[in-house]
């Protein structure tokens, strides 16, 4: 018994391939996840995200229309985003480091290369629950910190300064403030 109450979790699975969706949904159900929504494209996912307010998104990259990368960017930065902080796990056939960087720069929290494995999915899921990344706002990026938690250890003068979400003030990014108000 892990103590995770996965039955409370709402997960959105976005993939244009029905077989991959069925596989991922089956695995999530075996973990105990009950509330699972599905979408076949970025556009459809946007509507489902607005309607169901999921806690986590499992997102494919290659899709017709709005692909996973563009969806992640929109989820993070669009003024219409229902939740700019939502954990996004990208599940993709891309494996090259350049693709990992692109996904990271789009605001993806975790990257998971296909073929999928049960352990890999559970590990990423637990990671976004137990070890969420801090968020970063720069002139060109808003999303999870792209440095792999090194910021928690290094205390030198070149590190970014860390604040708490509860201390958001007038200079906080508009998107982040709006989301904080919405989820409070």
């Amino acid at each position, binding site marked *: 018994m892990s*103590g*995770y109450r*996965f039955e409370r979790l709402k997960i959105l699975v976005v993939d244009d391939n029905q077989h991959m969706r069925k596989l991922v949904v*089956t*695995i999530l159900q075996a973990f105990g996840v009950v509330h699972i929504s599905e979408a076949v494209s970025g556009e459809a996912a946007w509507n489902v995200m607005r309607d169901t307010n999921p806690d986590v998104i499992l997102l494919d990259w290659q899709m017709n229309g709005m692909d996973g990368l563009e969806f992640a960017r929109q989820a993070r930065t669009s003024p219409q985003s229902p939740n700019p902080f939502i954990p996004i796990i990208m599940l993709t056939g891309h494996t090259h480091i350049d693709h990992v960087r692109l996904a990271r720069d789009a605001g993806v929290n975790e990257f998971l290369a296909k073929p999928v494995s049960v352990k890999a999915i559970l590990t990423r899921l637990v990671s976004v629950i137990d070890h*969420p990344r*801090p968020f970063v*706002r720069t002139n060109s990026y808003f999303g999870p910190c792209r440095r792999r938690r090194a910021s928690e250890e290094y205390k030198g003068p070149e590190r*970014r300064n860390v604040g708490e979400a509860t201390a958001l*003030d007038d200079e906080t990014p508009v998107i982040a403030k709006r989301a904080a108000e919405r989820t409070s």
Partner: protein
Amino acid sequence: MSKEQLNKLFMPPNKLKAKVGGGTFAGLDMAAVQRAEAAMETLKVEFVDWIAKDIARLGDAYSTFVANRNANTGSDLFRAAHDLKGQAATFEYPLIARVAASLSKLMDELDSPELAPLTLVQAHVEAIRVIFRDKIKDISNRVALVLVEELETRTQQTLERAAHSE
């Protein structure tokens, strides 16, 4: 220290942790892993049908590409190959995943997918069909391995030639 600096990095409240709890011991919940692996086992009877449909989709995309070579049909063919690259190993055909990876690399890394040599594209599609037809699931199958490695080499050579001609 300015307010702007303070707001560059911040930790949102962990509402997910508050909602689902957990983390009461180190390591993965192996019972959940075993349940999920058992669930995947029950799906295995469907895998052969799933991969057959994915290969048929690849064949359709290839036929459309041959009939009308442009960026859109090339992109459709790339996506069909890319799906197989990601899924075929799960569906117990790892060599199909390798051939599909080679094909998707060919279609993706050229300046435009319609520049892909038809003979090489066709060789990939046919190889995938043959591996599936002959139910070759063993990654050490010598004949299939030679075929896969030859396709990967040809893809690499094609991409290098294209890069040099730019």
